[in-house]
């Protein structure tokens, strides 16, 4: 008994490679409207068969795979059923039939068939990858990770497994684990340029700029026109505070044709970070034309509208993000902020409170709710909300400023002074806090201090170039843009 993988002849390798490229396609998938993810079929011929059997089996499996590729699902199904009647535990046939079932929308049956394939041959990587895709499709990330980890363990050089696993881990916020997967893969294979970009992104998330930079540079060494790598370098520059370099890199990226909505999105985020709000806005609108149903795009778009500023458009973008992802606490928070800025307090409160139901860890949400309470004359409630924000982020200057403002309204001047002074110590550029200090000192009849604080407000306004127009749009600090 030998593993087929060891005996497949050179001419069969090409067939196997062709089979590796088999994907489920949404247009052939009966539930195509619901599912987008495709399953990769990797045929690593294996099983307890003799050479003679292999001689007959491999062409039949290739034929079945070809039928699937050509969308002749019914014929493929008949062929595979015939194979399995003869060899009921043939893992490749089970795996292929699982793919057929998946294409037919029979996901439970597909899962069973992939599992049977694995039971027939525990070293068979293909069904693990297919299961991983199936679990992704059905929203089971933990199971997906387990399958991909197993695939990578079985075949450390499997580029697809590494790529998928790393992306999933990073998306799940498991940054260290994601980095480990790619770094381990580095031992056994030459990383592709996209994987190097992914590694760079992971290092950047960890705040390791030199490592990120190295990865992006290596990616560019392989593929000099890789927009994502250039954008990665721009992000590293922004991280290091080298705004000018970032702009040069952004300009380089701009010249590269990007038809990928994800790259456009990334470009927009970098542009947003560089303060190029108009450009970010235009790029996001272009990305949304290509991919109109990604809530992240609308979140980013909303932030560019806030910056322009056009709060009504921002509100529209965040509402769209919420349509696409109704329970997103982030979108709820952004929308709440936008409504707050438009003085639509009851609705702002509604969305901010919804956001808190799902995610109680964001200090900004409490801060904005505090602002709403303050605007609705619920100063005691505002105090509690600002305190909650401070509890989560003790050096959150705006929350201290909000708390100080509430104490000012409550005529508790000593506490107001304490909080406002702490706020400007934490963030000397907060003109609103300086303004409230000016009001406080004016009430305490300390005209000199009041004037000093007003001068700071004026200086900050001048430093920021003053408002571009007469409208006084922003009264609360806006939420951090997506990264």
């Amino acid at each position, binding site marked *: 008994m030998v593993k087929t993988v060891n005996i497949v002849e050179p001419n069969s390798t090409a067939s196997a490679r062709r089979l590796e490229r088999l994907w489920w396609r949404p247009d052939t998938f009966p539930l195509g409207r619901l599912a987008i993810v495709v399953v990769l079929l990797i045929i690593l011929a294996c099983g307890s068969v003799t050479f003679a059997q292999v001689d007959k089996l491999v062409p039949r499996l290739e034929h079945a795979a070809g039928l699937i590729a050509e969308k002749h699902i019914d014929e493929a199904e008949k062929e595979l059923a015939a194979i399995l009647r003869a060899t009921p535990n043939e893992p490749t046939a089970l795996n292929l039939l699982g793919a057929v079932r998946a294409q037919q929308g029979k996901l439970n049956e597909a899962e069973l068939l992939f599992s049977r394939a694995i039971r027939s041959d525990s070293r068979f990587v293909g069904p693990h990858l297919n299961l991983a895709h199936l679990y992704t499709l059905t929203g089971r990330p933990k199971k997906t990770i387990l399958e991909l980890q197993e695939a990578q363990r079985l075949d450390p050089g499997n580029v697809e497994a590494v790529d998928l696993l790393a992306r999933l881990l990073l998306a799940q916020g498991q940054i260290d684990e994601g980095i480990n997967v790619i770094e381990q893969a580095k031992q056994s294979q030459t990383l592709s340029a996209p994987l190097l970009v992914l590694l760079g992104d992971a290092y950047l998330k960890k705040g390791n700029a030199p490592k990120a930079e190295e990865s992006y540079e290596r990616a560019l060494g392989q593929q000099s026109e890789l927009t994502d790598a250039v954008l990665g370098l721009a992000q590293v520059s922004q991280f290091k505070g080298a705004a000018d370099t970032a702009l040069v890199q952004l300009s380089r990226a701009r010249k590269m044709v990007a038809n990928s909505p994800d790259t456009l999105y990334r470009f927009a985020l970098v542009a947003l970070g560089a303060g190029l709000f108009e450009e970010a806005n235009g790029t996001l609108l272009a990305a949304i034309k290509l991919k109109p149903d990604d809530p992240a795009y609308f979140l980013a778009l909303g932030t560019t509208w806030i910056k322009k500023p056009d709060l*009504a458009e921002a509100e529209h973008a965040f509402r769209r993000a919420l349509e696409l992802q109704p329970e997103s606490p982030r979108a709820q928070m952004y929308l709440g902020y936008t409504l707050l800025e*438009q003085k639509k307090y009851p609705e702002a409160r509604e969305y901010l409170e919804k956001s808190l139901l799902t995610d109680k860890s964001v200090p900004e949400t409490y801060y904005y709710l505090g602002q709403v309470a303050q605007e609705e*004359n619920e100063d005691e409630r505002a105090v509690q909300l600002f305190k909650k924000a401070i509890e989560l982020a003790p050096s959150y200057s705006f929350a201290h400023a909000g708390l100080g403002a509430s104490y000012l309204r409550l005529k508790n001047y000593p506490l107001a002074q304490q909080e406002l002074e702490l706020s400007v110590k934490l963030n000397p550029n907060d003109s609103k806090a*300086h303004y409230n200090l000016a009001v406080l000192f*004016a009430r305490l009849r300390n005209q000199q201090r009041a004037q000093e604080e007003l001068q700071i407000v004026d200086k900050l306004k001048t430093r920021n170039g003053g408002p571009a127009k*007469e409208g006084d*749009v922003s*009264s609360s600090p806006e939420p951090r843009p997506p990264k």
Partner: protein
Amino acid sequence: MMILMEHLVVCLRLTIALSLALTLAFGLCLTTRAQRAAGPTKPVVTFEEVLPSQSGITWVHNNAHSPERHLPETVGAGCAFLDYDNDGWMDIYLVNSGPADFFKPATQIRNALYHNNHDGTFTDVTDKAGVAGGTFGMGVAAADYDGDGWIDLYVTCYGRNILYHNNGNGTFSDLTDRTGTGAPGWSTCAVWFDYDNDGKLDLFVSSFVYYDKTLNVLCSDELKRSYYCIPRHYKPRPSHLFHNNGDGTFADVSKQSGIADSPGKSFGAVATDVNNDGRMDLFVANDTMPNFLFINQGGGKFEESALAAGIGYSASGKPRSGMGVDAADYDGDGWQDLFVANIEQEFFSLYHNQKDLTFIDEPGEIGPATQFLSGWGLRFFDYDNDGNSDLFLVNGHPDDFIEMRNARVKYREQLQLFRNTGKGFENVSPQSGVVFNKYFSGRGMATGDFDNDGDLDVLIANNGEAPALLRNEGGNRNNWIGLQLIGKQSNPAAVGAVISWQAGTLKRSRLKTSGGSYLASHDPREILGIGSAAKIDYVEVRWPSGKIDRLTNPPINRYSKVVEGAGLNMPR
């Protein structure tokens, strides 16, 4: 105390008869419409536009619009309701632009005085009255400054202001030089009030920026199209305070009073008493600068306290583009609250008095409703006579190119009416008449009962367009009493008097403020709404002098004259 009530106007019978006939004729149609508009529970009060063909007011404002976009072109103009001939009917005065260093009109441009013919029509009597102006006019303030019983006119201008003294015979004389009230430069709003409680009306005049044609900044977009610059480009000027010497002259006390210590870019101004100390204070809106709250310290001194009061800046500490203002005790807590309208995206502010010289901005529904509007003329008044002060806003953007730069903002904007429900302000514009669907380049706005039917009508001065006269239809379904207060020991206009009244469970009080709105002057009579109460228990007037007159069971649904002091009354 004997108070004679003089029934000034009794034309109601004919009006009621006519309304009844119309209702009978179109009863079904009206019912259906009313039900659609407001439901069956509450009759709707509307404002209906009185067209020039009906009113005879054919005058049109000329804003001197030029390619250079001189700033004075876009901020005018004002209007007034006044009874210049003491016939008991409100006449109308309209201010126009005129010759200036940057504008040489090809044909004569003049202000207009329209005499009320008592039948809903007006006659232009400008030439006979001699009040055509002659400089680039801005606003107007009407009051009997010399206590001779005839209403005088003060017209603010870019250039030199004009004080027209009413000769009592349908004509006026320009006494500007003699009175010393010319205040050269660029003046906007003017307010008659008695800051030192000496019984004579003094005069506050808002100053806008230092400006002449050589200082004009040309602002243009990337296509080199000029637009009106933000006033930030110009330097602020101190406003004026003139003390009435009582001998037909005034003394400029701007410096010694402290008013001149605060140069501003001032527009709307209202005299009110924010700390209930019996001395009239001033709330003044500034454009691109913090607003002013001049607290009257007594002894002829004012202290600017807007910062401490929390009304100088936006909540985030940014000076805004304040334009129109007004003051009223909208929640009946006995303390004057303030309102200021700003430019689009700055939101308008309703400042609730905290009773300790501090205010909190509580705009409620007004906030989001004014997000994209720019407000000028505005007034707290009880349009439906239910006893609560409602709020009427006149809007319009100063930049005629704004729509090319911001699709959400219009140059001509809609009017707004907010009804005071007793719990807050409710936007009732959509159900208050088709005029609220129209767009105006609104600036000045005055209130007055021009048809003497017991509810307040509205006059709007539009920039570069004809004015709009709006008749209040249905405000008098609720009962009311109209009072004309004549101060004797106190100033003739009774500015600063506090009127209190009770009708059953409805108990209200109102401070007689002066100024307010923008470039405008209002019907000086006070209409006190009493809702559905069939009688009014008492009206009490506490005059600025401290004297109190109490009227028991005064007649309702008519105007009466109340003269300060026991037994003092002047039948007309």
